[in-house]
């Protein structure tokens, strides 16, 4: 394996970005797409080669390449350096694989858009930063990717920049992410202050050497962990660092309290939602926590926080997802909820289970978004599920792909989501974490809700009688006119406007509801296949599998550990099986409830909603979190800036000193003007006074600076 090839992995998409970004406007669409696809595909090929190499026997645990220094001052240096270990390889595979499929899909989905070149340029820019993020061998280079994907996300959410809601959503995403970055930055400053470096290896290798007071103990003995009485350090500043990292991860991975940007991010084109806001970027926080497992392992408090935040996010987002009407918003809340699952897994120390779910989630959630995009495409831009229905026969390929995705995420046995979710729940239940049982209960409940809202989406979209006005769809440039009555009837103020620009150029050849072209359906089918079988790499031992996924990651998660590896918590097989049974039961119950409410007895859901009006309204309004933040933080801050700082401090105090200064000058000038009266006798008087002063100074030696 030629390690210098590693540089090419991110640089190729960057070259694609530069090409499309500068001259893309003048190129034909086919050329733009070819550049973007080729850049991604070539990176993907290198990654595939890398994967094969890393799986082969005798491969090193990690490949590293270092180039020139990026930031260097005396005492601190960060290089451009990449490291590839097993965790990175998995992330690289997901990013380039799913990324390439979504690029292909976008060729069809965006075919009629203005700014085609801009879209693909941004998409390649995103790939570049995301690959840097996972390849980096230091916190700072990871932060480069971290901020960079935020930028790409900002640009892509605001792709339809003429629409205020899209511009707002992009800005909100960037700023909320910056709040997370604030935590990440502080964590890095603490790391520098304590370890003098930001390189993963240099920081992590110092951790086992911290003695119980947090002092670095290299001087006493080289192999201290085996010295009798050595207490490994935990808590203290490591907890501070971990919690600040969690703030960063909560921003990027949309966890409580910073999840609010992700649902709004659905303003972007659907492939963007699939790639950035479901499969890759939002999982960066989980990747980061897993990458820093050495730090987190030393801080039980921080791990507990991670588990609780994850569990709370999972269930909260799932409850909101139950009542949304916009198909993309349901998926968005579902993403938040699933990310909460992964957080939960990391919080109970089951990092490889978290990464496993990250991978299967990337498959089925990308599939779900792309299939939803295909539905939206078929309905010429409509996203409201209340006006869908009965699409099963009209768009069969989309329907079947979506079905695989829905069953996978809901946890249907033998599909990918089942294995990864089951693994997380099992690990939570058996973990020594003080909140393990609690988060397991929440996890099972969430899994029930997930199954319910996903089947709700499935039934509402594909079954029952069609609720759209086909005539209007066929002749209007998009669905807005036809659907106006529905929107006015809607009791929620949060129905999102459909992508109005989408398909605006399509009016000429619009022919009503149509299956998507093959460039869109082929990626769907590939993803459906992955969503179905992707879980078989991690079949647990209790079911006769070998859990290859976990063993593949073992070198990563046992590195830097001091002393003996902790023995596997050996739970009896019946426990694993009964836990699985509970999970399957939750899946079945969710499916059944959704079937009853949305297929068998339609209208029962509305009745229930009416009966529990306050609760329903709480959920529909997403617990009023946006409003609460607005009222508690944003408005007071703006008020204080405008009136207290701007109106009072700047005008009265800062400006006041200026006025006082100019007033004093004016006063002085009045005096001096008096002195210059033009009267020769008064001049003589001043002269005499001055002379007297000089004489006094000379005689009595009054020296102003003499001590």
């Amino acid at each position, binding site marked *: 394996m030629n390690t210098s090839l590693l540089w090419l992995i991110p640089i190729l998409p960057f070259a694609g970005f530069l090409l499309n970004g500068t001259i893309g406007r003048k190129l034909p669409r086919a050329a733009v797409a070819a550049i973007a696809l080729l850049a991604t595909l070539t990176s993907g090929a290198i990654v595939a080669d890398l994967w094969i190499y890393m799986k082969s026997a005798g491969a090193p645990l990690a490949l590293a390449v270092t180039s020139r220094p990026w930031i260097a001052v005396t005492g601190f240096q960060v290089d451009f350096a990449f490291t590839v270990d097993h965790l990175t390889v998995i992330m690289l595979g997901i990013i380039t694989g799913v990324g390439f499929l979504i690029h292909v899909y976008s060729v069809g989905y965006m075919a009629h858009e203005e700014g085609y070149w801009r879209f693909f340029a941004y998409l390649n820019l995103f790939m570049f930063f995301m690959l840097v993020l996972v390849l980096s061998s230091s916190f700072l280079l990871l932060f480069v990717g971290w901020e960079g994907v935020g930028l790409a996300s900002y640009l892509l959410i605001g792709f339809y920049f003429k629409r205020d809601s899209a511009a707002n959503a992009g800005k909100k995403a960037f700023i909320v992410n910056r709040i997370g970055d604030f935590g990440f930055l502080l964590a890095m400053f603490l790391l520098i202050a304590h370890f003098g470096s930001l390189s993963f290896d240099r920081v992590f290798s110092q951790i086992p050497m911290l003695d119980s007071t947090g002092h670095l103990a290299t001087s006493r003995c080289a192999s201290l962990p085996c010295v009798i009485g050595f207490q490994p350090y935990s808590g203290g500043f490591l907890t501070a660092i971990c919690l600040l990292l969690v703030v960063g991860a909560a921003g990027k991975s949309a966890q409580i309290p910073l999840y609010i940007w992700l649902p709004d991010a659905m303003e972007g084109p659907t492939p963007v939602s699939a790639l950035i806001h479901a499969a890759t970027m939002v999982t960066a926080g989980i990747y980061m926590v897993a990458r820093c497992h050495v730090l987190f392992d030393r801080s039980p*408090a921080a791990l507990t*926080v991670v588990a609780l935040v994850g569990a709370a996010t999972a269930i909260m987002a799932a409850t909101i997802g139950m009542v949304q009407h916009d198909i993309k918003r349901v998926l968005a809340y579902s993403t938040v909820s699933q990310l909460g699952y992964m957080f939960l897994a990391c919080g109970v120390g089951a990092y490889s289970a978290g990464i496993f779910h990250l991978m299967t989630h990337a498959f089925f959630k990308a599939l779900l978004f792309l299939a939803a995009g295909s539905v939206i495409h078929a309905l010429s831009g409509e996203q409201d599920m209340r006006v869908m229905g009965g699409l099963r026969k009209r768009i069969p390929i989309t329907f079947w792909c979506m079905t695989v995705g829905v069953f996978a995420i809901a946890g249907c046995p033998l599909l990918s989501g089942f294995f990864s979710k089951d693994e997380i729940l099992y690990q939570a239940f058996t973990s020594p974490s003080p909140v393990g049982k609690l988060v397991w209960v929440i996890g099972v409940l969430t899994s029930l809700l997930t199954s319910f809202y996903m089947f709700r989406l499935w039934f509402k979209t594909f079954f029952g009688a069609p609720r759209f006005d086909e005539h209007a769809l066929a002749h209007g440039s998009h669905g807005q006119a036809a659907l106006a009555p529905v929107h006015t009837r809607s009791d929620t103020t949060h129905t999102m406007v459909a992508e109005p620009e989408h398909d605006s150029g399509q009016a000429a050849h619009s022919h009503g509801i149509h299956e998507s072209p093959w460039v869109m359906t082929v990626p769907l089918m590939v993803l459906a296949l992955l969503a179905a079988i992707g879980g078989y790499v991690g079949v647990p031992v209790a079911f006769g599998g070998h859990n290859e996924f976990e063993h593949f990651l073992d070198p990563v998660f046992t590195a830097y550990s001091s002393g003996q590896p902790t023995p596997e918590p050996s739970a009896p097989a019946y426990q694993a099986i009964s836990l699985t049974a509970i999970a399957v039961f939750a899946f079945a119950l969710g499916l059944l409830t959704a079937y009853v409410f949305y297929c068998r007895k339609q209208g029962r859901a509305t009745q229930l909603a009416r009966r529990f009006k306050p609760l329903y309204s709480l959920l529909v309004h997403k617990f009023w979190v946006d409003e609460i933040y607005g009222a508690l933080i944003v408005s007071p801050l703006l008020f204080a800036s405008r009136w207290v*700082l701007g109106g009072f401090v700047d005008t009265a105090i800062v400006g006041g000193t200026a006025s006082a200064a100019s007033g004093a000058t004016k006063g002085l000038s009045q005096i001096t003007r008096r002195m210059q009266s033009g009267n020769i006798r008064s001049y003589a008087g001043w002269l005499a006074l001055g002379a007297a002063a000089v004489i006094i100074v000379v005689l009595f030696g009054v020296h102003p600076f003499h001590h």
Partner: protein
Amino acid sequence: MNFDHTILTLILLTPLVGAIVLALIPEREGAKTHHIGALVITLITLLLTLHLPWHYHYAAEPGSFQYEQNLPWISVPAIRYHLGVDGLSLWLTVLAGFLAPMGVLASWRTITSRTKLFFTLFLLQQVAMLGIFLSLDLFLYYGFWELSLVPLTLLIATFGRTENRRRAAIKFFLYAFIPSAIMLVGLLWLYVRTGTFDFPALQNLAASHSISPNTTALWLCSLSFLVAFAVKCPVFPLHGWLCDTITEAPTALAMVAAGKLGLYSILRFSFGIFPEQSRHIAPLLIALGAIGIVYGSLLALVQTDLKKLASFSLLGHVSFIILGIFTFTVSGVDGGTFQILNESLVGAAFFILLGLLYERYGTYDIRDYGGLAARHPWMVTMFVITALAGIGLPMLSGFVGEFLILSGTMQSIVAHHVVWAVVGTTGVIFSAAYMLWMIQRVFYGSIGHRPDEVHGWDLNAREHVELWAFAGLFLVMGLFSPVWMRAIDTYGTLTADKPTRFEPNTFRHIETETYEPTASRGFVDPTLGAAALGKQAPSANKGARY
């Protein structure tokens, strides 16, 4: 031919001679003679300044001056014509050289009448700036310092945008002149005590504590210097002149009005001649810096005038540098010095872009704009790149400086440093908020009423050249910062308290003063304290504007 001994004089003379020549050429209606002349002169100056980093001896003894020219000028009092550059002034000189042709290009369209007056004064301003960076004789320096005030005042009074210009010019002059006059007293006292105006000599005396045994007088003297510099920066709350000056000043002058001169002077003279006093007053300046970051960003968030927004943004950026250099850590000083370069470039690019908008639509009121992205795709690209450099996106120049400054603050040993690091870091949130808000209001959404009436054009060739130069620098400085840091670090390591190299055994423990309420400093950082107790950090979810 070896320029090394005369290069600094050449750098100063070129714009000076140019100014005289331009003043002698008669002005003709509608002709671009003076524009072209000024451009040629400034480009020659830029080329001459590029000689400095090209032939600089990076391995030379840190703190030594290169390309020195030291000639007696007046024997009594002992004033010498002493010029030289070191790691601190090397790139600042190049920066001054670079900004001048950019300023001329930015004035290409806007200055149509009285061009002779404008460009003559502009070149004099250039002489003054270069002189400030190059002088090593305090009296010579003071001459350039005062010279820098005059052209700016006159230009604002003559070429100001509104009828408010006279008042703004007077305000600027008073703000700049009164502290400078007090500084002159301090300067003369120094001469009386030591008998020399020579900076290296004074620096040596200061290092051996032999300027004066009178600590009170020394303190007053150091304050007279610091206040004059702080007003020029400006440091919060001495920024009363900034808004009016920036609002009135033509683009080319807004680019050079604030920041680098004052900051350089603090680094050179306050730190060089008054090292102890500067360290004693550092906690105050660190606090003012951190507050200034938040204050400037928050006020930028609520402005409706683009130039006012830019001036408060400038205040925020300058405060970052103040925070960094007064930590007296290598990271802080290096980062602060690097950030002077970045701040000047970002500020200049930002003012140029605002000027382009004004040229097209004749207003700086944000509320009049909207939806320009579709009309000006290149302009919005440049705006976004500049904004990203300004808010410190990694891989662009702003990040390197900001990161080093804040990380230096965290390493500092000044009391409450963790608090100020946290307060300063909130700046990354607020600066993103106002920049993105501004971009959204001007470029996104539906078309605003002013662009509806007037039809502007996208960038022309001159504007492309100008802005790509900036964009290229943002990227190159963000990616290859060691090129600049090599020289800057020689200064930073000398100035900082001690090198922040972390030997494994000399581990410093911030947590001893952070986590324990009974620590001797009597101070607990709320965020980290909460973190240690397993609670969510309280400052995490505050402060977004969305």
